[in-house]
C-alpha cells in the first residue's frame, strides 16, 4: 500500500482530480470540452460502431438460422395483410387530401424531420442517453421529440451543444410519456421498468386492454406529439393488491441497434 500511496503518485492524482473537479465550476466548460471531444472522435466512433454492428449482425444471423424459414413464412403472411392495409390507407389519404382542400386546412402544421446520426452512447450504462450529431447550429432546441426511421418514439432532446445534442431515451428513469392504447383508448403514463423495459401506469382496473395492442403517445404532456408509436402490450398484470393495472410494453425501437434518428421540429 505504501507504494501505491507514494507521495509523488498520490499528489499527481489528487492535483489532477482537484483541477478536473474545479473545471466543473467554469460555466459551460464540460459542454465545450464534450463538444470538442465528440467532434474529434465521432467519425472514428461511427466507423467502429458500424464494424461492431455488422459483426454482431453476422453472428445473430448464424444463431437465428434455424428460425429463418418460420420467420419467412410469417413475414410473407404479414406482407399480404399489409398490402391490403396499404390500399385502404391510400384511399383514406386521398379522401383526407380532398377534405383538407375542401376545408382549406394548410399543410404548414405538419412536422419537419431532421435526420441525425448517433455518435455516442452512455459508456458506463449509468443512464439511458444517446448523443446525436445535430445541435444549436442545426436549429435543434431542448425538449424536441426524437423518433426512429420507423416513426417510433426514441426520446427527447434534453441538452443542446453547438454541434451535438443529448437525447434522453424513453427507457430513462426520468422519462415519463403520456400515452394512450390505440384500440381501447385507455390513457396512462409510460415509464421505465426495473429490467430496462417499459410499463404503462395509472390504467384503472376497469379498463379492458389486450396483449399485442399498440401504445401510442397521447400528446397530453405537450412534449411528444400525438400518435407516435411507443410499443406493444406484452403483459397485463391485474393483481388484486394493486390500484391500477400494470401494463408491460415491448418498445417498438430496438435501442441497441439504433444508428440514426429523426428530430421532430
Amino acid at each position: 500500500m505504501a507504494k501505491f500511496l507514494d507521495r509523488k503518485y498520490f499528489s499527481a492524482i489528487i492535483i489532477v482530480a482537484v483541477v478536473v473537479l474545479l473545471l466543473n465550476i467554469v460555466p459551460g466548460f464540460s459542454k465545450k470540452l464534450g463538444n470538442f471531444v465528440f467532434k474529434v472522435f465521432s467519425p472514428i466512433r461511427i466507423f467502429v460502431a458500424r464494424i461492431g454492428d455488422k459483426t454482431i449482425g453476422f453472428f445473430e444471423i448464424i444463431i437465428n438460422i434455424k428460425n429463418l424459414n418460420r420467420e419467412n413464412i410469417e413475414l410473407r403472411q404479414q406482407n399480404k395483410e399489409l398490402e391490403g392495409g396499404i390500399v385502404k390507407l391510400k384511399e383514406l389519404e386521398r379522401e383526407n387530401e380532398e377534405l383538407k382542400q375542401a376545408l382549406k386546412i394548410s399543410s404548414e402544421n405538419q412536422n419537419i424531420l431532421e435526420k441525425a446520426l448517433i455518435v455516442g452512447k452512455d459508456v458506463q450504462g449509468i443512464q439511458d442517453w444517446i448523443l446525436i450529431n445535430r445541435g444549436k447550429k442545426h436549429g435543434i432546441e431542448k425538449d424536441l421529440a426524437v423518433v426512429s426511421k420507423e416513426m417510433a418514439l426514441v426520446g427527447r432532446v434534453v441538452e443542446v451543444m453547438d454541434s451535438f445534442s443529448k437525447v434522453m431515451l424513453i427507457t430513462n428513469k426520468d422519462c415519463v410519456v403520456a400515452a394512450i392504447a390505440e384500440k381501447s383508448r385507455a390513457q396512462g403514463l409510460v415509464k421505465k421498468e426495473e429490467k430496462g423495459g417499459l410499463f404503462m401506469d395509472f390504467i384503472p382496473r376497469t379498463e379492458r386492454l389486450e396483449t399485442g395492442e399498440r401504445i401510442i403517445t397521447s400528446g397530453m404532456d405537450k412534449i411528444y406529439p400525438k400518435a407516435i408509436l411507443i410499443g406493444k402490450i406484452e403483459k397485463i398484470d391485474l393483481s388484486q393488491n394493486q390500484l391500477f393495472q400494470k401494463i408491460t410494453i415491448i418498445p417498438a425501437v430496438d435501442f441497441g441497434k439504433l444508428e440514426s434518428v429523426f428530430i421532430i421540429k
Partner: protein
Amino acid sequence: MKIIFTIIFIFILLFFQVGILPNLAIFNAFPNLILLSILSLCILKEPRQIIGWIIFGGLFLDIYSLSDFLGISIISLFLAGSIAYFLSQNLFKKSTKSSLLTVFLISIFFYNVFLAFLFKIAGTGFYFGFLNFITNIFYNLALSLPVFGLIKKLC
C-alpha cells in the same frame, strides 16, 4: 516506442468501449474495458506507471457518460485501483484464478459503489437499479480474466 504503443492501445480500447460494448447490454449493463484494464495494470504494475491510464481513461469515461460532471470516473478508478493493488499485494499474493477473481470482484463492486455515491453527490440524476448493479458486476467479472491475460501479454 512503448509510449506510442500504449497510446494506440488505449485508443483502440476506448473506441471498442464507446462503439461496440453499449450494443451488448444486458439489463442496461455492459462491460467496462477501461476499468478492467486499469484494475489489471494495478495488479501487474507499479502504480506510478498507470497514472496516465487513470487520468486519460477516467476523463474519457466522464465525457462519454454524458453526465456533465467531470472527475467522477477519475476518482472512482483511482480508488478502485488502490483497492485492487492493496488486495493483490497483501491479501491475495498468489496469482491463482480464484484469487484474481476475488480481487476483481471486490474492486469492481467498490468502483460501482464509488461511482453511484459520487454521481449522487454531484446531483447528476444517477439511477440506482439493483438488477443493473448486480448484472454490471458479474458481466465485468466474466471478462476480467481474459482482459487480465491480454494486458499481461501486452505488458
